[in-house]
């Protein structure tokens, strides 16, 4: 495992994750692109991209509507690419490492948003007192997410590298392989049925 590459990848993820919510939202944080970029950094761009697209398909049923916090694609794409490159190059294991990491980060994201709720009150009080420094709060919010994502990726990458010791057991590998194969088909089916439902509703409205 190259520590330098791990650090650089984490920092790159920290930047890309900002596109998920706080900046632009032009889908730079989509798992397929993040997997491609991080994969390219660690020497496996094709595997990174395909891991990312698989995760993207699975996450497509989770929409960021209202206060709903979907699983984080940027973190998922990063961890899957890193785990593939540095922990046995076993595709299904890397896929699920990324897949579940996205959900774990969503839990952290909820906490971050709750913290920012306290900031919202502080900003209002400051403005009432004539102290307008929105740039400071914007920068603080971006730094908060950036640092959280970097720390999360570093911690859980190492966690999954350690978990990769179970890959020596064929039983574990077989379960992962079968589950990975089925999950991607299930994801494709979920999208197909989603659009089928939309088309059915359109016909019903007519």
């Amino acid at each position, binding site marked *: 495992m190259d520590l330098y590459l791990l650090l650089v990848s984490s920092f790159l993820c920290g930047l890309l994750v900002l596109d998920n919510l706080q900046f632009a939202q*032009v889908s730079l944080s989509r798992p397929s692109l993040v997997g491609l970029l991080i994969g390219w950094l660690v020497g496996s761009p*094709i595997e990174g991209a395909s891991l990312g697209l698989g995760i993207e398909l699975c996450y497509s049923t989770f929409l960021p509507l*209202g206060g709903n916090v979907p699983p984080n694609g940027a973190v998922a794409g990063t961890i899957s690419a890193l785990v593939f490159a540095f922990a046995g190059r076993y595709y299904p294991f890397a896929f699920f490492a990324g897949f579940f990491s996205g959900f774990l980060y969503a839990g952290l994201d909820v906490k971050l948003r709750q913290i920012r709720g306290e900031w*919202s*009150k502080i900003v209002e009080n400051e403005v009432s007192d004539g102290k307008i420094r929105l*740039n400071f709060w914007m920068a603080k919010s971006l730094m908060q997410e950036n640092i959280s994502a970097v720390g999360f990726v570093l911690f859980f990458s190492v966690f999954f590298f350690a978990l990769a010791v179970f890959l020596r057991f064929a039983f574990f590998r077989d379960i992962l392989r079968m589950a990975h194969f089925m999950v991607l088909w299930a994801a494709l089916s979920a999208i*197909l049925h989603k*659009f089928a439902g939309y088309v059915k509703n*359109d016909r019903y409205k007519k």
Partner: protein
Amino acid sequence: MIDTKNRICLFFRSFFIQCGWNFEGLQNIGFCYVVSHWLERVWGDEDKLKKSFLRHLEVFNTQPHMSGFIIGNVCSVEEMLSAEEDAARKEKMEAGLKTIKKALASSFASIGDRLIWGRIYPLTTIVCLLMWLGSGFYFWLGAGSSNSKLFVAGGPVFSVFIFAAVSLYFRWKGIGYGYKCAGNVSCGLDLMNWNKTLSRLNFAGFVLCFLISLFSCWEVFEAAFASLPPSWAIFKMLLVVSSFALAPVILKRKRTFLSVTGAVFGFSFVAVLILRVVGVRVLW
């Protein structure tokens, strides 16, 4: 008509509309930041500026790519408000501004969520998949091999390009359109036939997904029967069929895809355990 320099300023600031997103005020901090430069420009008096900032720190949430319509409209109304001399009319306009923000925010949240997150985003994923399948890369299905690295790398980049083009278009267009509306509570809702657009995207998404599913099934079928013993090839195809059937059954019960993954893991564990117990080596 809004001048280009201010429009560009609002456009780039609108990228931060979700910065500081929180459960208390939702997009309040971000929205206030977006319009802050404009407010500083139109309100000379410090107290009135403070009051205008507090107005925009109230709870606000909309689809971020559609926020341009609300931003432009709000800026236009704030400009008119700052030029208004009559106190009674000013109070009426302030109350009207709240109504405009609320009405447009919820309208564009509904349109934007359905359009951008519900259709455009998954469609761009499908486009990437299509590019890969078209270039012979179906490694993600456990069959075939990668042929063109350029297409594989280009797939995600092209998806991002399409999504970014659509999102940036609505952001830019919305600001100009919203500014011209100047207080109209149904601003931008007539920009296009939203329902017709959604219908077309629905149909396109369904057809593309169906073709990808069909093609992928065929590829896995061919690869399985070419490389595995017939019993294992049939088992693999049964896995495909059962996965296809499993997802909608679970999702229809208002469960998330995480439940589908859990079911898949459970099935895989039991299947592999049984195969090991009866002494059958798992072939793939």
